[in-house]
């Protein structure tokens, strides 16, 4: 047996860099001398973290965000907030904040030295120019993110495709929304939550699959609980008893990686008992017979054996789902982060379509979007194969339309590129020489991140735009100081498909610049500023309206004014509807697939976004995870989030009260497993996979399957769960399989980092 301690690489501790750039913890009292002062203003805007985008009011005094006040009128959350939203103001005027540009400098203890902003821009432009001249345009790659405003994501797509003309552009939604997006497009022809969240309230059955709602979308909890007060039955599918599962009516403790089997089995029960809506299936769908044939291979006993769920529980779920008159099915990364991610999504859509409960009040389906702009950020051209309006970079008509809007020849647009992980692989082989990244921390967030660190270290030139020096930016040759959400304005599209307005509260400090200005400055220094010279986000949005017009993600009827007047506008929202089709209400399209609704693909043939207007059943044969357990690595590792941290933790690990709430990653295991391993709660344990190892303290709890261990992934370096995870990806969506890999766990001594680093570092 090989010893992973000797054969797998170990991340550096980066002590001197951390000393200079953090993450350090900021607290209320340390930052503000007198917080009791009356604020200069309250700015109505939204949270900077998750996809729910709760309405909030920032308290501003002397160009500093000093606190937060509920925004009771905003209809999604009515003032509710989670701990992250409450403390997010502490990231502004933080001691770690990048106030200048930096360049890598071996002579400095921290590894970096300041340089004037203009010099940094010049260096970046020269490097891009040189790399593209010597190695071709595609040798320069761009990584972007879905926490940016829609305006910025539109600009990033235009910058890569029109200014750099590189095919290699992708975004961090590759780790988040792509399985749901691909599944939705295959089944419905459109990628958006089908319903507003208010439809949860009237559902008789709420089925939550692979979503730690209470920790990852906390405000949604109240919708679920309120439905339950009205008599809804709540079914939760999860390998862990998360807080939302604790009081559900039926808990299906699925073995990680077996979701398709479960939903195929549930569909089979529905068919056997004739709990399907034949009329809906006949009139509004295609492909049911093939799906039914596949379901037939999933009798109860086989489903139970594969999923690890008791047969009677599967039967009960099918009965409740099958007999309900109204229902809401929601899922999240738990079923999407798999090599079968798209199939898992499609298998849930199959039971929704078979029930016929879609496109009506209180009959809903949605993925719970992860990032702030996880929805808008996946629509307008920063995905590797995409153009604005949800258009395809591989489609000649779409290319021609966008090239026309942008004032360039269609053949000058690059071909579709590769996904974010493949960009890392190409950097590793040397095919990609240069990288510009913004809003992405792949050293923490990508799987098998020892490989990612190697890839970044091989780049000829790497420029990172960030407001804090993230673990990834530590690998950059030049770091440009970007903007926080509260320092810019624009729109985002939250998890219901509602376009909302982010309002600027304060100006950027020091030499930090708004992200879009940095991109413009680079384009200008390259002498390729054509098409990028916007004066403000609204001007970008106005162009985006034109660019999205006629596409599936049609924003042409949305204006800043309309958004602000109506607490948001739901897309699709075309500026005009064809003769005979009634105009949309002021809030746009609240609910998709309503009977008689018109869309630009079906053109009246039916409510779904295919030429015949019908939804597609998709056959979902079960395929196990890429790496299953074996004698050497006998346990399943699954990863996820905790409520007080967000994604790679670049922001939340700098906010003291959030760090204190959950300081360091713990490895959760069941007491029966702990007993087998001789581990007690709080002991150090080493988890090892074929790719790396990670020593953490154990949390022994009976709220997790005994064959599975869980580690939250928000930390970097030697505390990073993604040292262990596998880079196997879904063949269609290219999402990595974060939710299943094989590990072994053993009792260990205290790791070297314990004495040298603070919990958040």
């Amino acid at each position, binding site marked *: 047996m090989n010893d992973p301690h000797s054969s797998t690489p170990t991340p550096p501790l980066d002590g001197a860099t951390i000393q200079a750039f953090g993450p350090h913890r900021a607290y*209320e009292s340390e930052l503000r001398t007198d917080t009791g002062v009356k604020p200069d203003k309250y700015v109505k805007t939204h949270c900077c973290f998750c996809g729910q985008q709760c309405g909030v009011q920032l308290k501003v005094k002397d160009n500093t965000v000093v606190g937060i006040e509920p925004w009771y009128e905003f209809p999604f959350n009515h003032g509710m907030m*989670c701990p992250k939203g*409450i403390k997010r103001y502490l990231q502004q005027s933080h001691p770690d904040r990048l106030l200048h540009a930096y360049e890598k400098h071996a002579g400095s203890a921290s590894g970096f030295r300041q340089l004037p902003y203009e010099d940094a821009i010049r260096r970046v432009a020269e490097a891009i120019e040189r790399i593209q001249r010597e190695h071709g345009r595609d040798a320069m790659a761009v990584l972007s993110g879905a926490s940016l405003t829609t305006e910025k994501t539109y600009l990033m797509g235009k910058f890569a495709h029109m200014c750099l003309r590189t095919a290699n552009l992708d975004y961090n939604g590759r780790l988040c929304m792509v399985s749901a997006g691909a599944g939705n497009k295959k089944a419905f022809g459109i990628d958006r939550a089908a319903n507003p969240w208010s439809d949860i309230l009237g559902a008789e059955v709420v089925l939550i699959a692979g979503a730690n709602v209470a920790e990852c979308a906390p405000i949604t909890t109240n919708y679920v609980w309120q439905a339950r007060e009205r008599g809804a039955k709540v079914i939760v599918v999860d390998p862990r008893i998360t807080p939302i599962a604790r009081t559900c009516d039926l808990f299906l403790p699925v073995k990680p990686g077996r979701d398709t089997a479960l939903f195929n089995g549930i569909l089979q029960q529905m068919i056997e008992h004739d709990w399907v809506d034949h009329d809906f299936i006949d009139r509004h769908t295609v492909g049911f017979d093939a799906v039914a044939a596949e379901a037939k291979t999933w009798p109860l006993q086989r489903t139970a054996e594969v999923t690890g769920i008791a047969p009677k529980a599967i039967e009960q779920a099918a009965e409740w789902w099958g007999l309900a008159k109204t229902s809401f099915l929601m899922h999240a990364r738990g079923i999407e982060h798999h090599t079968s991610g798209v199939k898992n999504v499609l298998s849930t859509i199959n039971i929704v379509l078979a029930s016929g409960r879609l496109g009506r009040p209180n009959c809903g389906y949605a993925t719970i979007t992860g990032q702030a702009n996880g929805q808008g950020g996946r629509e307008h051209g920063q995905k590797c194969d995409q153009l604005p309006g949800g258009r395809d970079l591989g489609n000649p008509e779409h290319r021609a339309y966008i090239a026309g809007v942008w004032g360039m020849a269609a053949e000058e647009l690059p071909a579709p590129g590769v996904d974010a992980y493949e960009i890392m692989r190409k950097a590793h082989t040397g095919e990609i020489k240069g990288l510009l990244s913004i809003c992405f921390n792949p050293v923490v967030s990508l799987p098998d991140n020892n490989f990612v660190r190697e890839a970044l270290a091989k780049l000829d030139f790497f420029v990172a735009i960030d407001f804090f020096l993230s673990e990834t930016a530590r690998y950059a040759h030049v770091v440009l100081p970007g903007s926080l959400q509260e320092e810019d304005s624009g729109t985002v599209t939250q998890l219901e498909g509602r376009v909302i307005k982010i309002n600027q509260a304060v100006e950027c400090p020091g030499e930090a610049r708004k992200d879009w200005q940095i991109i413009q400055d680079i384009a200008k220094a390259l002498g390729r500023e054509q098409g990028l010279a916007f004066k403000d986000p609204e001007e970008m949005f106005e162009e985006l309206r034109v660019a999205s017009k006629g596409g599936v993600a049609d924003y042409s009827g949305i204006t800043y004014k309309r958004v602000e007047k109506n607490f948001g506008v739901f897309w699709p929202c075309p500026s005009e509807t064809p003769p005979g089709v009634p105009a949309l209400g002021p809030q746009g399209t609240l609910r998709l697939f309503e009977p008689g609704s018109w869309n630009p693909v079906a053109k009246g043939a039916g409510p779904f976004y295919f030429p015949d207007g019908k939804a597609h059943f998709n056959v979902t044969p079960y395929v196990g995870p890429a790496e299953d357990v*074996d004698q050497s690595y006998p346990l399943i590792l699954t990863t996820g989030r905790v409520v*007080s941290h967000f994604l790679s933790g670049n922001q939340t690990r700098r906010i003291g009260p959030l760090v204190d709430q959950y300081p360091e990653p713990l490895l959760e295991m069941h007491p029966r497993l702990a007993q087998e391993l001789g581990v007690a709660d709080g002991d150090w344990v080493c988890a090892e996979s074929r790719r790396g190892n990670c020593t953490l303290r154990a949390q022994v709890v009976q709220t997790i399957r*005994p064959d599975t261990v869980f580690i939250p992934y928000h930390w970097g370096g030697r505390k990073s769960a993604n040292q262990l995870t596998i880079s196997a990806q879904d063949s269609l969506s290219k999402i990595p399989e974060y939710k299943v890999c094989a590990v072994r766990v053993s009792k260990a001594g205290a790791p070297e980092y314990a004495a040298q680093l603070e919990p958040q570092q």
Partner: protein
Amino acid sequence: MSAPQDLEFFIDASRCIGCQACVQACSECDTHRGQSMIQLDFMDRARSTQTFPVVCMHCDSPTCAEVCPADAIKRTDDGIVQTARNPRCIACNNCVLACPFGVPKMNTKMNLMMKCDMCYDRTSVGLKPMCASVCPSQALAFGTRAEMLALRPHAKPVNDFKFGAQSIRTKVNVMLPRSVPQEVVDVTQAMYEPSIGQDPFADVFSDLFGGDVFRSIRPRADA
């Protein structure tokens, strides 16, 4: 100004998700910045994710005030039991030990007892307290009794408690299932009563796997 009397505070622990939004929001108050006055604890994390939030219950006859030798704890006419008055409090800790709900905290740095005053700065002008404003599960809720009864048809508010021989009526309500006959929460007795519904500490995984879940990690007998 006084708090509108038709607005009440309701705690429903069955809704609590332990997210600590209430704790983080409470610590934003200008009078005790950086410190929360809310107690939020896991009941038994090893066995369940069940958590329980406790704010000051604002008793009609507050034990904390009754045991205070310095008469530092005042109750307003509208029923809000306030944090100890700074000049009077002698930091003797009597209130901390005596409160049956375990609410007051001793701030040793400031030599002062501090506790929840139901965001008097907010409630006295008709705003919700911060914790109940932000609570994402509405385990902590603030509104009229009629609203609450309409929103939660299976629950009833109760504000009478018994701790041994001591009976206490509070301004703050806890939600109980309407199906149970109790109109008084007998806290001492409840420690010995079986839980309502499913045992929250039951190991739901115990009957799912039999013994074979660990087969793969045990050394084989023949190996």
